[in-house]
């Protein structure tokens, strides 16, 4: 059997949708494992709104909604600034 350790902090890039689109990737993924279905479905719903082509939602407000329901602290991982120990990446 294997055990899996999950980060206590939560990656959240909902307010970076434009930058995500700018990368040119085909899809983005929400990792809903280890979370309750109720919590996860709300998160998925918020991202569905954020990713709409004709999105008129305020992304910061969507992020606030995530902050209100999550038990984790939110971060942006390396997405914005890269890996901290490297001078440039």
């Amino acid at each position, binding site marked *: 059997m294997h*055990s899996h350790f999950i980060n206590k902090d*939560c990656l959240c890039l909902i307010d970076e949708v434009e930058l995500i*689109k700018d990368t040119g990737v085909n899809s*983005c993924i929400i990792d809903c494992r280890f979370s309750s279905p109720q919590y996860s479905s709300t998160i998925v719903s918020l991202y569905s709104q954020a990713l709409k*082509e004709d999105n008129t939602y305020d992304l910061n407000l969507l992020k606030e909604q995530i902050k209100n329901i999550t038990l984790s602290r939110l971060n942006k991982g390396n997405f914005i600034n890269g890996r901290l120990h490297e001078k440039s990446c």
Partner: protein
Amino acid sequence: MTLPELLAPAGDYDILVTAINAGADAVYISGERFGARAFAKNFTLEEIEKSVEYAHLNGAKIHVTVNTLINNFEVVDVVKYLFYLYKVGVDAVIVQDLGIIELIKNLIPGLEVHASTQMTLSDYDCILWAVENNISRIVLPREISVDKIAEMSKKMQESNITMELEAFGHGALCYCFSGNCYISSYNSGRSGNRGACAQPCRKQYKLKYKNYNVGNGYLLSTHDLAVYKGLDKIEDAGVFSLKLEGRMKSADYVGTITNAYRHLIDGDEGDYEKDLSLVFNRQFTDGYILNQKPGQVLGRESSGHEGVYIGRITEKKGDLITIAKENEEFKINLDIGDGIGFKYKDKIKGIYIDNIKEQTDEYIKLETTRNVREGDKVLLSYSKSTHDNLKKFKSETIKQNIPLDLDIKWTEDLRLNINAKFKIVEKGINNENKEEEFSFRYISQTKFEPAQKRPVSIEDIEKQMLKTGSTSFYINNLTINGMPENSFVPIGKLNKIRRTILDKATELLLNYYKPDKKEVRATNKRISQFVKEYKSYTDIPVRNEKLNLSIFADNLELIKMTSKLPIHKYFFDPSFSYYGQEEYFNNIKDLLKEAYSIVYKGKENVDDKLVLVLSSFVSDEEIERISAIIEELEEEGMRIPIMYDTPGIAKSFKNKVYGNHNLNVWNSYNVKNLSDAGFKSIILSSELSHTEIKELVSKYQFIKGNEDVDLNIIIQGNLEVMSRNSNIKWCLITICTVISSIRTVYV
């Protein structure tokens, strides 16, 4: 015992010399970039070249680690670096990044590649993939057992596949499967996959459950591996190379363990187990390789070195203490200069012994001003004699290992006509050695002349020719025929002739390990062309497609609850719901049927919306079982692709295969490699920045050819930071620290 290769680590040139002198068949080192030990001293390019020469003169090999993951901005630099390593005759590079493997395969096929343990290659499909990718050796994960290795070796023999297997034999273990650990990266910005691991698994933690402390200590720390008791099993399993860990360790450490394993492998008698105990270790475990359980591998009491247990203080009178010797495994006699530690509770105070009042087999009396107590444990942490013995390994020495045959005749005009011959033998798999014979003729400029006084004798010539000094050769056969009578040549001239012959033999020896000049020129041309083309890939593609949203789900309820939302793919990972293999296989088919009906609601599957995620590190047997279930479902009209994280898997499944995050995709050549291996969709590494991802996507457009692969990134969630062999299934790292300071990037 005939384990073909003992592979030692070296963090700098002096340590490399020590390792080779102590008996390493090969040494692995790193340059100043692209090595997984960013904080070791490492080797400059000049030092790498010098190391290659020193090793080859001693019949040893040099493996250079190029085992970090690289982004697209580093592609040109890494290619140039690899070309340099190839030119100077490095014997192999150890690589983790699939993109680097792709680049070497296409640009520098003459460079031998070893797949790093960071790739976690452990199933038969991976071996087949490795063969196709010009990989000659797999460095096995430290979680794999000798039984599994033996199984792999047997399968390879039956299929006539030649692949060297390298296994870790001694040194530090990681808590997590190597290459699948992101805890240092996500929590301190220091990526283990970039050689910058902050070693969070050696720190103290408190484990909390519902705000209650349920465990304290070095919860993620493991004992150190030491397989000396099971060397025969490892050899029988078909391991070609036994690897010693420790590129961050000192020359004393590397010298001690290399010397010990050299003798243990060769079957020599000696106190080598005690030597191993004396240098840094976190107490030994036989490891997973010798079938130990996770609980036996973990060392949660301490993450540092204590030393060899001597006994306890039984009496203290003023400064005079009596230590009763209680170690039943090793006989310990202390000497002036030895280092000992006194352990009270968790703390150890150390002294170097400067006096011994009395010593017997049962006790030792000595004086110390340290504040110690009766009952304190006493540990031997430094042996002066062991340290002194290592001095002989520290200076550069060329071992005269290669037999050289010289056949000496004379030309008609009395010059020496010497035919020299030697053979280089390299150990191969299944005792099939690779041999190459070299011979050359040398005719001296110097002529023998009629002797005016004492003529030169055959014995004089023999005496001078046998002096091979500090070269790799010794004279095996020396034949002298047709020596002109009453002739003379100065001894100095004879010495010069010998030196010329040995220089020529040495040149042939060193060139043997280097690539052919014609091939170097052709490679150089390929690389120049590549660099030119790569630099021309500058147009950033414009995205017109909609950005899709997919989710990882581990339960049906979530799939039901989100079924009305615009979900592109459900990556369904039910493995966390089960506590064992049998429970998983008893239920998985029905569960997939149910998930299928929720996702497609009776409609036709046109877009493979439901994807089954396999757990990491599954066995060949499990792959076969899951493959059979997927085929059965397909026969029942349900097509379900799978997602997994080793590169060889795609050919085991008829349906589409998706690449999971642990494939560590960092660059466009990595994507190309996986695309060629049959993957249809890939998750890019979460360690990448926006700029790196953009560059990857951009460059991939130029190299993808006809095949296209969906590129995904994870944008939300508590990400997996570690996976490992264990008895528990998963836990949230809320544990984190009280004593250590794990920093998190908060935004």
